[in-house]
């Protein structure tokens, strides 16, 4: 899991030595205890939100993180922002380990990492004027000078009318509110902005305005973004490098175009295939995955994707059979050339995508009924969590 990654514009095959990333995360693990009982909150199991992930974020570049709900993408973002503590692993910021810094030691660092949230309705205090909202970070960090002037400059930069600084959030539309959130994030001149689904709540015609604004700000200020999204079109548009996550692990890391043009992990193939493109209205054939994402409280053994994996069936030649290696050994991220990394025992080869479509999702069965998905309680016993991850072996969800 600790293979060196290459920068988005590095020469093929070259690894990073001199170039220190802005953020370097190694072996991040986050487990949330599942507790039972009111007074003595006994842990009866854990949700494995992150199962050891590595990534680098470079100055002036965007790391896109895609995956479905529960894959750990937001947890990873929160750990980078130090809003959550990792259970294991380290985060380096500009080469300095910040994992163990105290709250007080973190204060100057907080200025350099800011967050833009998904819901522009919930993330702005309705009782504060826009001026107060945008000035809040300046106030908190005791930035001296003419705050009103600074706020108005920021408003102009994100395309809001600076005269509106006395207005309240409800007087603005969703797109404008997201601009307010971006202005607030910019107030302390950060080096990294974590964007957690920043356009998902916006109307289609407004999304493009906000995405263009984020692009302009990156070019003007050399900002780095960690961009979390479930929308593959949006991620392709904004990212230099992309990490695909599934059930707490990064399953594929690649430069933007390499990921879309030549995906190597079966999950990435399915994700891209499932995304609606609106390709001139043509009916495209999709690779449908069977079932749902399993519960992160009881991830399947071996490769966590194996119960749904069409490639594993292709390898075994039987829709009900998965190679033993996929069931028992967890694959690690391995370089497959040009900084493209994939965590799969049998990465996708040319022609696999078509062959996988031949396997109907409905035929995929394994060990009873994995299709029952997330909330199926009886099914949880099928999937064996590693014993050391559990307090007393329970899987109560």
């Amino acid at each position, binding site marked *: 899991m600790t293979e060196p990654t290459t920068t988005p514009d590095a020469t093929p095959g070259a690894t990073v030595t001199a170039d220190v990333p802005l953020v370097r995360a190694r072996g991040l693990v986050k487990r949330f205890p599942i507790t039972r009982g009111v007074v003595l909150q006994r842990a009866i199991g854990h949700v494995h939100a992150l199962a050891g992930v590595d990534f680098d974020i470079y100055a002036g570049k965007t790391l896109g993180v895609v995956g*479905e*709900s529960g894959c750990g993408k937001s947890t990873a973002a929160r750990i980078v922002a130090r809003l959550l503590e990792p259970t294991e692993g380290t985060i380096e910021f500009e080469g300095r380990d910040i994992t163990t810094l105290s709250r007080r030691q973190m204060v100057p660092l907080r200025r350099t990492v800011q967050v833009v949230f998904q819901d522009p309705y919930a993330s702005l205090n309705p009782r504060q004027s826009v001026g107060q909202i945008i000035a809040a970070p300046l106030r908190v960090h005791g930035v001296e000078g003419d705050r009103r002037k600074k706020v108005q400059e920021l408003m102009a930069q994100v395309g809001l009318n600076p005269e509106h600084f006395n207005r309240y959030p409800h007087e603005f*539309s*969703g*797109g404008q509110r997201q601009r307010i959130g971006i202005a607030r994030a910019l107030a302390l001149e950060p080096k990294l902005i974590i964007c957690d689904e920043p356009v998902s709540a916006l*109307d*289609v*015609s*407004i*999304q*493009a*305005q906000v*995405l*263009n604004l984020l*692009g302009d700000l990156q070019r003007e200020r050399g900002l780095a973004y960690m961009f979390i999204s*479930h*929308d*593959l*079109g*949006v991620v*392709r*548009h*904004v990212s230099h490098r992309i990490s695909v996550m599934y059930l707490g692990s990064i399953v594929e890391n690649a430069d*933007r*175009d390499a990921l*879309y043009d030549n995906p190597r992990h079966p999950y990435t193939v*399915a*994700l*891209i*295939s*499932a*995304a*609606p*493109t*609106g*390709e*001139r*209205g*043509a*009916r*495209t054939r*999709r690779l*449908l*995955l069977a079932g*749902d*994402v399993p519960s992160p409280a009881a991830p399947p053994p071996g490769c966590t994707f194996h119960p749904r994996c069409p490639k594993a069936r292709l390898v075994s030649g039987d829709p009900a059979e998965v190679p033993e290696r996929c069931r028992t050994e967890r694959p690690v991220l391995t370089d497959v050339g040009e900084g493209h990394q994939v965590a799969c025992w049998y990465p996708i080869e040319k022609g696999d995508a078509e062959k996988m479509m031949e396997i109907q*999702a*409905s035929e995929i069965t394994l060990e009873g*009924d994995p*299709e*029952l*998905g*997330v*909330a*199926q*309680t009886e099914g949880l016993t099928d999937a064996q969590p590693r014993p050391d991850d559990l307090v007393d072996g329970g899987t109560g969800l």
Partner: protein
Amino acid sequence: MSSPREGHKLLEVRDLRVHFPTEDGVVKAVDGSSFALDRGETLGVVGESGSGKSITFLTVMGLINRSSARISGSVLFEGEEIIDASAARLRDIRGKRIGMIFQDPMTSLHPMHRVGDQIAEVVLTHTGASKKEAARLAVESLAEVGMPSPETRARQYPHEFSGGMRQRAMIAMALVLKPSLLIADEPTTALDVTIQAQILELIDELKEKFNIGVVLVSHSLATIADVSQDVMVMYAGRPAELGARDQVFQDAQHPYTWGLLESVPRPDVRVERLIPIDGQPPSLITLPPGCAFSPRCRHVRPECTAAVPELRDRGSGHLDACIIEPDEKTRLREERLAALEAGA
């Protein structure tokens, strides 16, 4: 094609208007909407928030409170005028003849009742079936929507289901009495990408199997592209464009549709810079004069603001509400596509 024409359609809506009087003025949520749908067809309805897409179909189902809204026009369902039907008649139609599914399956299911019981309740309400028979139909319906082990699932509660499974349960509930029309309002918006694909595929399969008409309401053109025969693009309470899928996607005629097609980042092609639609959707209380899209339209001309443009047929049932002549539009569209290519 679903353009208004003679004959017995499954659903035919003519000049539907839904106005809500408020203290600030009249909100014209739907202001002249006409379209039709046959059995075995899917009509995809696309629009942004406030375009009137949801209100249109809530009105069709009789779910808009008539004391708070002024409703006019005509809604013919299986040849019967239902716009002024009694509450009892509408209750009978809903559930039995028209099935509905909504965006968030968690809030549409009662958290304290077993899923099977909730589906069986539809049967008990609308037919004289026995409890046992209703329970059997519920399990059958769950099996129909691809629910593994439907007997077990019927005895479980909604919180034991994943998002995709809940939406399947909603579809099972909507279709348990084999209605002729299914109205799906943003059925996949709350779901993950791979589950979205499963649900759309399922709706399409069931449409073929039971020969029902489907209305698929979405904010995303790409979502409906795959499974719709006809597409209606709505803007500010009116259809901006209406036609067969290929007509709308390959030969879009309305500048708003162009804007939608151009502004969405796509997973298969990347452009350096997106071309957004400028400005904001208008207030439905004070609509701009003439064409409601004109303040945001790059090709606006003085005539655009003179009168509200009518939906006009460009031939073969492809309608649009833009007054610019087709030849000129072809030229404008080519220019826009060239600009888009240059950015790619």
